[in-house]
């Protein structure tokens, strides 16, 4: 039967937890967990996330082969505060398990990397568990992986970087100008969001959710709202779904514009950034006019949206879309007409398709390396089932491919905006959430890729536990591979073409 079992067949025999929506959560024993690891080694099931919860470990999977809508969570009770690691069969789990160990004090047995990740030794140990320990006397001395060879030198960069960007440390080992190895050390922006959200009323927690990664505030607020709505078994009104999609596509366009400009800027082509920032500003102003906030923060809330779109707002957006159609194509032509610029982007920072699959990556990083997948389409959510959307898929896996995926996604989002503005239903935009306990999960496509949000609500309408998994968890490790063999000077270019979130993974 090896490899012939579907995810649902495998987990279906176990006890499903009541009030977990929309996908089931099964409690399995350690023997079954080990069997699950074996199944993972012979199947293509994607690991969507792994996180701690008291003395339990939850791992979410999707069976891409059998049915991409087959999503399920496996839960293992760990009274001895240890569990068999998934890292051998799903390397994307490595940093998530290191984080789980840091925050919950639960040990992944078999995980080769025993270094802490988010825990820098500057805050209490195992802060989310009942076995919370005091802050160590001095911070951890982090051991970077050894690199051996003739005439190698190291370049340490960060956590404070040269530009207006987030903090993180990059350790380059180079032979001359060529990068032999890059090792990332993150966790500098760790704010303890999971600890903060626990015990908060839903609306307060929603504000924190919208600030896990500010550039994806709409996507995160949407993911949180959908998870809460799943947990309390009440859907938002139809118009709210359309308004949410409207905001999500505006956010996608705004971010892609900045990325397209910034990538070219890092290849000494500043005019692209100047034009892109001008276009982006138009999107931000339209968002501010329509919803009252440039980034549309706190505008998607559990139950619907906070602000309805007025007739003037809809008109403003129609004008914006028709202008962008023309002006964005001019920007694309400008890029396409510069062989010297493409000389920098083509063939630089290649991510092999096999690696994108192995780490279960999503978003433009995956789609530029032949790995498809878009949460808007599968498992899918309203209103995208009623809209015409195709996601681009390229093979080259280089900086240029990641840039072209963004270009195609801006085009697709502009078309989506037109469709949404054309067909948006009327009616109410908010239906208050009933005070009801339950567990819910959502998968939402942000501009970087798929965001997972899992939430447990108490009977009195508070958040008991919430876990957000940023798409960058499965993209950061690929950057380490992409830069290998490239010159140091091309790192900013590669890094910008990934544009991973620091805050999103630092939690």
């Amino acid at each position, binding site marked *: 039967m090896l490899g012939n079992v579907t995810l649902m067949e495998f987990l279906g025999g176990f006890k499903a937890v009541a009030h977990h929506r929309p996908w089931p959560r099964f409690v399995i024993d350690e023997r079954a967990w080990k069997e699950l690891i074996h199944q993972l080694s012979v199947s293509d099931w994607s690991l969507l996330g792994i996180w701690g919860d008291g003395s339990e470990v939850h791992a979410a999977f999707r069976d891409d082969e059998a049915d991409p809508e087959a999503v399920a969570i496996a839960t293992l009770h760990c009274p001895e505060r240890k569990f068999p690691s998934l890292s051998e069969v799903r390397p994307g789990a490595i940093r998530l398990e290191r984080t789980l160990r840091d925050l919950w004090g639960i040990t992944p047995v078999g995980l080769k990397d025993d270094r802490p990740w988010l825990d*820098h030794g*500057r*805050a*209490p140990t195992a*802060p989310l568990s009942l076995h919370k320990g005091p802050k160590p006397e001095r*911070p951890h001395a982090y051991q970077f992986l050894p690199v051996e060879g003739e005439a190698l030198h190291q370049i340490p960069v960060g*956590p*404070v970087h*040269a*530009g*207006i*960007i*987030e*903090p993180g440390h990059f350790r380059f080992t180079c032979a001359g100008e060529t990068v032999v190895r890059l090792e990332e050390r993150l*966790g*500098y*922006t*760790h*704010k*303890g*969001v999971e*600890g*903060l959200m626990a015990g908060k009323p839903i609306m307060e927690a929603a*504000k*924190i959710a919208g*600030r*896990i*990664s*500010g*550039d994806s*505030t709409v996507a995160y607020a949407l993911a949180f709202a959908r998870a809460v709505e799943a947990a309390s078994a009440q859907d938002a009104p139809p118009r709210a779904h359309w308004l949410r999609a409207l905001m999500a596509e505006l956010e996608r366009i705004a971010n892609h514009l*900045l990325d397209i400009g910034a990538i070219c800027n890092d290849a000494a082509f500043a005019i692209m*950034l*100047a034009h892109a*920032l*001008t276009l*982006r*500003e138009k999107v*931000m102003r339209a968002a*501010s006019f329509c919803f009252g906030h*440039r*980034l549309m*923060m706190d505008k998607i809330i559990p139950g619907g949206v906070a602000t309805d779109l007025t007739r003037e707002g809809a008109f403003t957006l129609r004008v914006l879309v028709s202008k962008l159609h023309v002006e964005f194509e001019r920007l694309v032509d400008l890029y396409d007409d510069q062989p010297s610029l493409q000389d920098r982007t083509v063939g630089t920072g290649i991510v092999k398709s096999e690696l994108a699959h192995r780490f279960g990556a999503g978003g433009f990083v995956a789609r530029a390396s032949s790995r498809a997948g878009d949460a808007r389409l599968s498992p899918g959510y309203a209103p995208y089932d009623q809209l015409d959307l195709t996601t681009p898929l390229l093979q080259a896996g280089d900086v240029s491919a990641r840039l072209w995926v963004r270009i195609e996604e801006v085009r697709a989002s502009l078309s989506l905006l037109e469709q949404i503005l054309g067909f948006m239903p009327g009616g109410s935009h908010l239906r208050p959430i009933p005070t009801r306990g339950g567990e819910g999960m959502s998968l939402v496509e942000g501009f970087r890729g798929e965001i997972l949000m899992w939430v447990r609500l108490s009977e009195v309408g508070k958040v008991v536990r919430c876990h957000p998994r940023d798409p960058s968890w499965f993209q950061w490790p690929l950057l380490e591979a992409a830069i290998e063999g490239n010159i140091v000077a091309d790192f900013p270019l590669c890094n910008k073409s990934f544009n991973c*979130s*620091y*805050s999103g993974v*630092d939690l």
Partner: protein
Amino acid sequence: MNGRFLLLLARTLLKGPRSIATPAMDQDSIVQLGANLAERAHAKLGRSLRIREVDAGSCNGCELELQALNGPVYDLERFGISFVASPRHADVILVTGPVSANMAEALKRTYDAAPHPKWVVAVGDCAHNGGCFAGSYAVLNGAQSVVPVDLTIPGCPPEPEKLLAALLALLDKTATGE
């Protein structure tokens, strides 16, 4: 060629320039700076400021609006203000984020590396008092807990125009020494 020129002329006359007009100096900032800079007000820098930005655990929302300042629409550099890569070149340390425990030392060391006289600007509600992250085991509740803050620009995130108006007030104070 002539036709094209006329078209450009007409468009510029009708639409105006891409950059926004100079915003008025932010009054709240002037009052705040008046109180905070009392002792260092005699340090005169001339009409130029160099800023080293430090993200001390922000959600990256503030960074987006700060980046907008560099773009053609807000064009910070026309006022003599610009962002620099090294604290050694900076007059201003601009802090965003609630100051995570993991960034506190890096922020302090960046501040220490900047030459005197120097000013600290806390941007956003998080850098002001921790914002919605205040009270977490992993944050220090604002820039003030690590470095002396001269000017706070509240907002989540503050809009670019507001950032610009506040920075112009700082520029004026450091230039006139009043």
